[in-house]
């Protein structure tokens, strides 16, 4: 991703600009260096809840006003909370991007946190968690994450624990907001149809006067090295068994990260870069698990993160199959890779796939701006521009070395979701009458 201008305002706010003139659009992102990793026990879920509260109005823009203002212009806006960050964006017709600049400057410091809105949002967020709880994958993911991380803030789900969602106060949330939302803890990114010099002036005009704050200390408790395989088992009503195997993985800025990205491509197929993924039916694990009818699907995921996080493999076990059989087949493939049986042809293929997926990810200004903000947060915006080149540099020896070091049983957590008895008859019938599953 070339042609990026990096500019730091006098209050410490980092600004990245990239002109793209293929459509009459511009996307403005503001990313704060705060995510669920920064939440001590008792306020888990605070970052995500704060994100919701930033849609609940300020004095300048009362609740609901902006939903309509953005739609009226034909734009879109949203936000996302992740383990490492909270980010907000608007994508608008380029001539209206000023509105986006004003919205984010305003709510950086002026969000109201009206007590009634806080209470109303408590119900919404608990409802969001309950919606996730309807899916077996959520229970399994939460348990695996908590088992893999005992100390580091990566141990809890972004949505937070129900106990904290029940008990957190308006003061807890507002304190979290004031501690982390300030220009010197923010990254602003604009991609689209504008003139860079003019856009810098406009950003200076809107953000320059916001005072810097006391930069928050990163809440950081390093995770001790794991010294033996950990296992966790969830038993709940469900339709199928699931397995999640999660290995501790390197941070995004570690050169090992790209080696493991290649490992994942070979095992599970390439990661989508936000422009849409491709199938993974020729990946090693698909062939070992799905073609052999042990599993209905298999997916892998390696996320670029500030601190070492997880490389996860998710398996949907086929009905009637013992999860132990699926796990054994997985281990055979992991052992092959650790022994170093990857070929040059496989490596070349992975690199070609990466070039294609990278091209898909550059079609939208929203996606390009996201990548600049996201990668600047854990290192530098050049991380994404260099993504393909960094993969190109990985050798067969690198792949073997990374697989041997990271894919050790002692470095992993294995989670099983086991559907409890009592639902099987229903599946055999497949009927949809009102008595279904009523226990």
């Amino acid at each position, binding site marked *: 991703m070339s042609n990026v201008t990096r500019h730091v305002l006098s209050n410490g706010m980092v600004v990245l600009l990239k002109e793209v003139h293929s*459509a009459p659009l511009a996307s403005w992102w503001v990313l704060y260096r705060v995510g669920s990793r920064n939440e001590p026990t008792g306020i888990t879920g605070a970052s995500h809840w704060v994100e919701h509260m930033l849609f609940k109005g300020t004095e300048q823009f009362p609740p609901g006003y902006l939903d309509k203002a953005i*739609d009226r*212009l034909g734009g879109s806006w949203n936000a996302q909370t992740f383990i490492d960050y909270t980010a907000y964006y608007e994508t608008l*017709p380029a001539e209206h991007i000023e509105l986006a600049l004003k919205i984010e400057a305003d709510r950086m410091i002026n969000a109201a946190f009206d007590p009634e809105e806080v209470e109303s949002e408590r119900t919404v967020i608990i409802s969001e968690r309950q919606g996730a709880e309807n899916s077996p994958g959520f229970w399994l993911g939460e348990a695996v994450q908590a088992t893999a991380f005992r100390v580091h803030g990566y141990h809890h789900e972004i949505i937070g624990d129900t106990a904290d969602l029940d008990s957190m106060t308006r003061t807890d949330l507002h304190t979290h907001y004031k501690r982390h939302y300030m220009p010197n803890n923010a990254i602003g990114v604009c991609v689209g149809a504008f003139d860079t010099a003019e856009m810098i002036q406009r950003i200076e005009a809107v953000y320059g006067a916001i005072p810097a704050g006391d930069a928050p200390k990163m809440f950081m408790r390093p995770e001790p090295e794991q010294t033996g395989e950990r296992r966790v088992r969830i038993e709940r009503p469900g339709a199928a068994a699931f397995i999640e195997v999660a290995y501790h993985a390197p941070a995004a800025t570690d050169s090992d990260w790209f080696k493991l990205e290649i490992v994942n491509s070979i095992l599970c197929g390439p990661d989508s870069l936000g422009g*849409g993924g491709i*199938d*993974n039916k*020729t990946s090693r694990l698909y062939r070992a698990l799905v073609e052999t009818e042990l599993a209905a699907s298999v997916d892998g995921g390696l996320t670029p993160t500030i601190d070492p996080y997880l490389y996860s493999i998710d398996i949907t076990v086929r009905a009637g199959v013992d999860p132990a059989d699926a796990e054994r087949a997985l281990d055979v493939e992991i052992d092959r890779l650790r022994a170093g049986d990857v070929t040059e042809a496989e490596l070349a293929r992975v690199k070609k796939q990466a070039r294609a997926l990278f091209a898909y990810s550059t*079609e939208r200004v929203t996606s390009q701006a996201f990548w600049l903000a996201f990668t600047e947060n854990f290192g530098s915006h050049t991380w994404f521009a260099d993504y393909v080149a960094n993969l190109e540099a990985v050798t067969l020896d690198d792949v073997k070395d990374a697989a041997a070091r990271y894919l050790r049983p002692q470095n992993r957590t294995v989670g099983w979701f086991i559907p409890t008895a009592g639902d099987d008859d229903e599946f055999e019938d497949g009927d949809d009458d009102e008595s279904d599953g009523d226990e």
Partner: protein
Amino acid sequence: MIAATPTYALPHSGNIVRATLDNGVTILVYENFAAQSVVFTGSLRAGAAYDVPDKSGLSSLVASAVMRGTTKRDFLGIHAALEDIGADVSVYAGGQRANFGGKSLAEDLPTLIDVLADVLRQPTFPAAQVERLRGEVLTGLQIRQQDTRYRANRLFSETLYPEGHPYHYSSRGTVETVKALSLDDIAAFHAAHYGPDAMHIVIVGAVKAADAINIVRDAFADWRNPNQPSTPPVPEPAPTAETRRASVALAGKTQSDIVMGTVGPSRYSPDYQAATLANSVMGQFGMMGRIGASVREDLGLAYYAYSAIEGGTGRGPWSISAGVNPKNVNLAIDRITDEVRRLVETPVTPDELSDNQSYYIGHLPLQLESNEGVAGTIHNMQVYDLGLDYLLHYRDIIAALTIDDLQLAARHYFNPDALVIAVAGPAENGV
């Protein structure tokens, strides 16, 4: 205030290149050299409308099964041809048509189209592969049986449309019907319905139009299928006389999903645009419209609450969906019913009309930003006979709608005392 028409060129008859082959295949190409990728999207007349009730899911299984082996490539060969170059092709059955889509780097378009032609024209349905696929489909259906949103949607459709109506059934079929489908069923469906008549393919990306047309012509020009039956008409469902409520209880769930509504317009209905704008007022505009404001914001009841119109060839549902805590199910249903009544009985305000007109017109650039967005829009223009200059007229079509048009459309489709309501959630409360 209505947003100005964008100055950037919209896709229209002057920059979309269209070619029609003798066998009925229509090719539409829109050049875009902003990224290095190319996409295609298209369809042929082989959707769930051609399924019979006791074989529901057949069109869907056939669409998946074509990717399992051809006279030229086995399963691994098909997927290696695509995945080796980071490309993707998918075929899936919709209500009326079997749809296909794909993408690759622009340099790989010949391979992409070669694989597409291979799987559409000469699949062999190898028995072992079909059984494997069937197992995956059955696992998926069983997982969906435990998904409250899926179950609420199914129950809604089954209650809204009578047995025998194609929209009563899931295009995916049921565990029972999918188990019973034979290899002969699959081969026969393909032989009858996959063919060039009224097949459309749209290509968008970093490729010259003439090159793209030649690639498609070489792959499809000699395809013939004289047996393709004509499109069956979608029957008109009888109007509902009173509100009907159905529910399903699932163990181990913590949230209830509600789907409620009525039979909406088809894409061809004269009041389709008026209905979609009325729908936008009710459950889309400004974070899910009036329903979002009432159910999500005022009451804090739901994580999501919105309304949607699914008008296709036939009259699809006009529905409102919400996910709520089980104890709030009845309150949410009451509030949603109030909003339906308001839409029918009280005219929308001038501000609401102009806001929603601006939204529809102003959203075009975002919709058309990606290759996939452009391809999908052109494909819709072709399937529903909207004309290649539809986007040029779009602003005028939307701007011409009046407050009366919206209310008449709402009244035409909705009777607030005769709604179909479906709920799926835990057994304890609300269901």
